[in-house]
């Protein structure tokens, strides 16, 4: 994070001028290295966009190289230290492209997908080797005999041994890990089949036998690696999109040193630092307000929608959003010690829903692995008793293992999850966890958070009709003088109703209180209840007072998120139990529950209450889906069987959940339950296909009729059938 500090041009930073040593350090850092800037460009889509963005960026002084990645909708810029990312954002917005700066440190982990490349390399080696070996095998099947056949087998062995040694490593490693932990997984029979096939084939070749399974071993590795790669790819796409969401919040703060402003990385703040929090931005530290009055939005932390007044001497927590006036804060806790992080620790305490779940593939492996091993051992023993011939018996045992090898089983799950995740991704859902879909399919209870999940978190005026036109005209005039969310809501509603603002003079805004002006010689005020002299209500409200008349109340409701009503209706129609748990007060929660037709709701929930409710639901046998966005939801999100959070949620909440909703619309939630159920059915269907194939093929292997040709045909056809079945999901 030193990058952010040293990127400051010395001349543009008064603090550095005041401290010459700092200036020297900055200059040295500037001479040493360039900086990397990453920009998110959500609207680019064609070659014209690429060249427009690239030529604009490359023409900017100080930019060394800029390249657009259309797949990730991102631009990577190599620039000199003096280039300010916000200037580049401005430059691109000037030519008509929406741009956001990304935190380079956060996206770096996915910039080069090492594991994916590694798998792709192994897949390629297995693919090329199997093509060559298959070429030789076809000649053997076509009738090559004696010395020719032996030579072909030896060449095959020379290709297969190193290729398997390299490509098969992921399976060998996983199998070893499972065995040394005393468990069985799908990789154990895979490893055994591959190794036994190779060893038997080398032995057969040495004795100039007729059958060698080199091609089977290689194609098996190839198909299984393809399954692994699909699986990895699906999750890598979701992960990089999720990380981009996190990277959009560049953790910077404004530090005040002797009255001079300095932009620093939030991680570099120390206890006792003075931090300036501008209206509209999130507080980076826990602290005490030194100067300034304002209002704070705590909805992400507690779910409360009513803004809280803030004045000097008051405590402020990291994560609260400053609404009206600038605040100077003395930091009392920074980084990992802030209440934001302490609350995230609750997540660690909650027993995670995903660790309780055993995936379908693992359950299948538990049945399957011992089954094939016993079958193979029995056929070996049977044949040895019958023929007293070790070589034949081992050959049969190997054939049984190869024929039953879970090639189709290895593809059964990843092919379906890839298709289903792709489908949901196009609808705006990111599936982050590998078993999320399977867990989603079992859900029977859906728990929602209110603020920011079912509602947008932005207020709308709810009682416009109760006011006289004169009051509305004055309120509109006053509201236009402020950028407070409630003022903006009044402006929007009044303008939409065709109200014209009244003529007012001497308009002044008192941060944290309201707006005051003169109207026809009278003082008119719009603002908080205690400033106006009205009684506090439990609904978000602003008050208007004309002269000494009685105060008039403007009530606000939280705007419903798009698709919220449809989602609740669809979930109830599908027979799910729907609950609402909110940290907000009784009236707004009851009001919202009534509007959406939710009968079970609870208000004033603490994070612990939400967690306890989820846990007691799980204990009573329910499978719970939790949908939430706030810090007070994180523990509940982690404890639920499966969890969804919107893209606007706090980072901690997005990390705790399995699925992230990218758009503003909530309706994909109901769809995802249907898709998940379909996907799980498809997976089970695939298992059934694979089992049916084994039931037919295994007897041939046991009575010794399986040849390498039959094995190759059976294996490929079952893999293709399973993949095609998965594609039906689209």
């Amino acid at each position, binding site marked *: 994070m030193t990058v952010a500090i040293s990127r400051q041009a010395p001349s543009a930073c008064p603090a550095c001028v005041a401290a010459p040593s700092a200036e020297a350090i900055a200059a040295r850092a500037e001479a040493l290295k360039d900086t990397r800037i990453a920009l998110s460009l959500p609207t680019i889509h*064609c*070659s*014209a966009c*690429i*060249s427009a963005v690239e*030529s604009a960026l490359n023409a900017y002084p100080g930019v060394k190289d800029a390249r*657009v*990645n*259309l*797949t*990730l909708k991102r631009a990577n810029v190599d620039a000199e230290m003096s280039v300010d990312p916000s200037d580049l954002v401005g430059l691109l917005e000037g030519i008509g492209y929406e741009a956001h700066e990304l935190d380079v440190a956060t996206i770096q982990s996915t910039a*080069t997908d090492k594991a994916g*490349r590694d798998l*792709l*390399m192994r897949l*390629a*080696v297995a693919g*090329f*080797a199997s*093509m*060559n070996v298959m*070429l*030789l095998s076809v000649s053997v099947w076509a009738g090559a005999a004696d010395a*020719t056949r032996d030579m072909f087998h030896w*060449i095959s062995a020379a*290709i297969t041994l190193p290729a398997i040694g390299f490509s098969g490593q992921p399976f060998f490693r996983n199998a070893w890990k499972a065995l040394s932990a005393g468990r069985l997984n799908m990789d154990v029979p895979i490893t055994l089949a591959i190794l036994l096939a190779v060893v038997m084939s080398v032995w057969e070749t040495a004795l100039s036998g007729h059958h060698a399974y080199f091609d089977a071993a290689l194609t098996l590795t190839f198909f299984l690696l393809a399954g692994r790669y699909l699986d990895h790819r699906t999750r890598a796409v979701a992960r990089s999109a999720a990380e981009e969401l996190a990277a959009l919040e560049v953790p910077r703060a404004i530090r005040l040193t002797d009255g001079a402003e300095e932009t620093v990385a939030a991680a570099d703040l120390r206890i006792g630092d003075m931090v300036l929090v501008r209206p509209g931005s999130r507080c980076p530290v826990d602290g005490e307000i030194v100067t300034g009055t304002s209002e704070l939005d705590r909805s992400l932390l507690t779910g409360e929608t009513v803004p809280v007044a803030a004045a000097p001497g008051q405590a402020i927590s990291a994560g609260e959003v400053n609404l009206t006036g600038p605040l100077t804060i003395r930091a009392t806790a920074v980084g990992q010690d802030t209440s934001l992080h302490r609350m995230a620790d609750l997540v660690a305490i909650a027993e995670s829903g995903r660790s309780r779940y055993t995936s379908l593939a693992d359950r299948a492996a538990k049945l399957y692995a011992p089954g094939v091993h016993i079958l193979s051992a029995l056929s070996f023993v049977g044949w040895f008793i019958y023929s007293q011939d070790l070589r034949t018996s081992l050959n049969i045992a190997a054939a049984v293992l190869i024929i039953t090898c879970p090639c189709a089983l290895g593809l059964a799950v990843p092919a379906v999850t890839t298709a289903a995740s792709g489908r949901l991704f196009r609808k705006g859902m990111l599936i982050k966890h590998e078993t999320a879909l399977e867990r989603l399919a079992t859900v029977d209870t859906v728990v929602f958070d209110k603020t920011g999940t079912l509602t947008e978190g932005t207020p709308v005026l709810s009682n416009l009709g109760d006011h006289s036109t004169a009051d509305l005209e004055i309120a509109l005039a006053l509201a236009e003088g402020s950028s407070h969310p409630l003022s903006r809501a009044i402006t929007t509603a009044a303008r939409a109703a065709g109200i014209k603002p009244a003529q007012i003079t001497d308009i002044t805004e008192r941060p944290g209180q309201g707006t005051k002006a003169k109207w026809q010689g009278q003082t008119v005020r719009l603002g908080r209840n205690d400033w106006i002299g009205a009684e506090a209500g439990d609904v978000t409200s602003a008050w208007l007072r004309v002269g000494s008349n009685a105060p008039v109340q403007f009530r606000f409701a939280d705007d419903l998120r798009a698709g919220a009503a449809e989602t609740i209706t669809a979930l109830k129609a599908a027979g799910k139990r729907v609950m609402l748990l909110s940290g907000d007060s009784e009236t707004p929660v009851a009001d919202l529950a009534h509007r959406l037709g939710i009968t079970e709701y609870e208000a004033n929930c603490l994070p612990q209450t939400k967690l306890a409710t989820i846990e007691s639901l799980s204990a009573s046998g329910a499978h719970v889906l939790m949908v939430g966005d706030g810090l007070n939801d994180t523990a509940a999100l982690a404890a639920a069987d499966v969890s969804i959070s919107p893209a606007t949620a706090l980072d901690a909440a997005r990390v705790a959940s399995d699925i992230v909703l990218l758009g503003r619309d909530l309706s994909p939630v109901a769809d995802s339950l249907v898709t998940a159920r379909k996907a799980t059915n498809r997976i089970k269907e695939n298992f059934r296909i694979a089992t049916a194939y084994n039931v037919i093929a295994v007897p041939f292997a046991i009575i010794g009729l399986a040849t390498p040709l039959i094995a190759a045909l059976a294996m490929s056809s079952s893999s293709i059938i399973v993949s095609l079945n998965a594609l039906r999901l689209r």
Partner: protein
Amino acid sequence: MQVLTMLIPISLILGGLGLVGFVYTLRSSQYEDPDGDSQRILSDQWDDHPKP
């Protein structure tokens, strides 16, 4: 059967060349941006001379 002494090495070398080519493209990050690459081909920006 003399032809085999030619054909087998040739098939192995051709397969090997394919693999080497793939490894080269993978190492030089040519699979990072498939969407962008399919669009860049339509741009006439570097038609006259390659990008310096």
